[in-house]
């Protein structure tokens, strides 16, 4: 009864109600199929593990992962490692986006500077930032600093390139408009160019969520004494692949939550922006 009510909620007429019902039924169908698929994969994994079709030593099995999560939750260590990685990722994400945007602003401020830096940006962008790891460790030590630096390095240049690109895409007539009032370049930037680029800055945020997770996990592979990346390396070294699988699941979960948070932020900020 309640479901039937929900299906036609907000209907303005019978016909509209039928339309809403069809729309919502379709939504439910998608969601149900997604859940069924997940359950099916888990069962298939579990069953094939039990009957020896896949090697549990390598692929582990859902019940073992679940048991490990319970164990680690009981002694609190899972929270500890997740917390450390999460904090590193959020800091890396924020700093990478912030510095990338600031660098884009600096470049925009001087067209000459922009032309000078252009080839450097291209090279830095195509270079695998992970290769900088040894330099971070030598200069910043084997602590959180190196890990965060890795996340920043990975997100920074692509942020700069995308954000600077969006600065340049602003319709020059807007600049003409502000210039008719004698606006300085900085005024035009603050009043028009920066707010006009907010959508692309936010879309780089979404990309940067993924990139900072890569940076932090790689960073933890290299130096960490704690964190989910550390658990993966540790699990691998002691051949506890259940631990590796568990860490992987937690990372996917946390990254998804973070991505959704950014998507929510985007929705809030873009409410009144339509052209």
């Amino acid at each position, binding site marked *: 009864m309640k479901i039937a009510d929900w299906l036609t909620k907000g209907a303005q007429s019978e016909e509209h109600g039928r339309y809403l019902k069809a729309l919502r039924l379709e939504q439910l169908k998608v969601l149900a199929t997604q859940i069924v698929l997940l359950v099916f994969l888990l069962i298939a994994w579990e069953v094939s593990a039990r009957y020896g079709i896949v090697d549990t030593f390598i692929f582990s099995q859902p019940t073992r992962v679940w048991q490990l999560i319970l164990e680690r939750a009981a002694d609190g260590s899972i929270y500890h490692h997740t917390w450390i990685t999460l904090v590193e990722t959020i800091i890396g994400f924020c700093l990478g986006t912030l510095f990338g945007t600031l660098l884009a602003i600096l470049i925009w401020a001087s067209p000459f500077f922009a032309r000078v830096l252009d080839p450097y940006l291209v090279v830095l962008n195509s270079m695998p930032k992970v290769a900088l790891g040894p330099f971070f460790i030598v200069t910043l030590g084997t602590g959180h600093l190196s890990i965060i630096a890795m996340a920043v390095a990975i997100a920074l240049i692509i942020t700069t390139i995308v954000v600077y690109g969006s600065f340049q895409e602003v319709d020059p007539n807007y600049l*003409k408009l502000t210039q008719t*009032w004698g606006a300085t370049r900085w005024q035009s930037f603050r*009043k028009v160019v920066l707010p006009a680029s907010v959508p692309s800055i936010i879309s780089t945020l979404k990309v940067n969520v993924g990139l900072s997770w890569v940076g932090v996990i790689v960073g933890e592979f290299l130096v960490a004494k704690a964190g989910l990346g550390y658990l993966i390396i540790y699990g691998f070294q002691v051949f506890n692949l259940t631990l590796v699988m568990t860490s992987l699941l937690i990372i996917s979960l946390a990254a998804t939550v973070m991505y959704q948070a950014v998507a929510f932020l985007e929705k809030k900020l873009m409410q009144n*922006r339509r052209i």
Partner: protein
Amino acid sequence: MTHALAIELKDVSKKYITKTGINYAVDNVNLTVEAGAFISLVGPSGCGKTTLLSLIAGLFPPSGGEIRIFGQKVEGPTSQVGYMLQQDYLLPWRNIYQNILLGLEITHTLNRETEEHALYLLEEMGLIDYRLHYPHQLSGGMRQRVALVRTLATEPDILLLDEPFSALDYQTKLRLEDLVSSTLKKHAKTAVLVTHDLSEAVAMSDRVYVFSRNPGRINTVIEIPPVISEKTPLASRNIPEFQTYFQRLWEELDVYEDR
């Protein structure tokens, strides 16, 4: 400050130098506009009309000659000149109220008094109830009216209108012509209109300058008699003399198109 001539152009030329050579956008242009007058510039595309407006607005200096606004040499944008573009270019992330204050913010003249004046102008345009709306919620004609308020809010004495009605549908355009014309008359503004629409030029102005291109030069000046220019643009289209002047303008342009 009180100078009978609002705009004076003496032998003004503007050349663009590029890798492939030098182009004269406008060459040897002389024109004067009395305070309170409404003049139009018509001519084929690429005859430098928009360049001329930008020069008067002080967006860039002329390559030769001299431009004076109320007797003062133009050396950059001044608050005495307002500019209206082909499209409204309202900022989509600001509501209407915030949009009309943009010029005041940039010129650092936003205070209680100027803000009230801007709102008064918005009311005059019949848009006060839309002040909290966003541009995408308004029609094209309403948006261009908001753009007019934004331009007038900084209280310029001279308005440069760069085909401000060309992106609108015909009915909206006629209505807006009347509104702009009466608003400018009421506030005693001087106006320079660039347009492709010959009937708009005849209906709105006291004088029409016909340009030819390559390089942009004034070829003919047509004075529109008071019998037409004193009426509103819509009403003036109905009087017999209108057709005569439209025809004259048409022929003048035709001659230069063919060359």
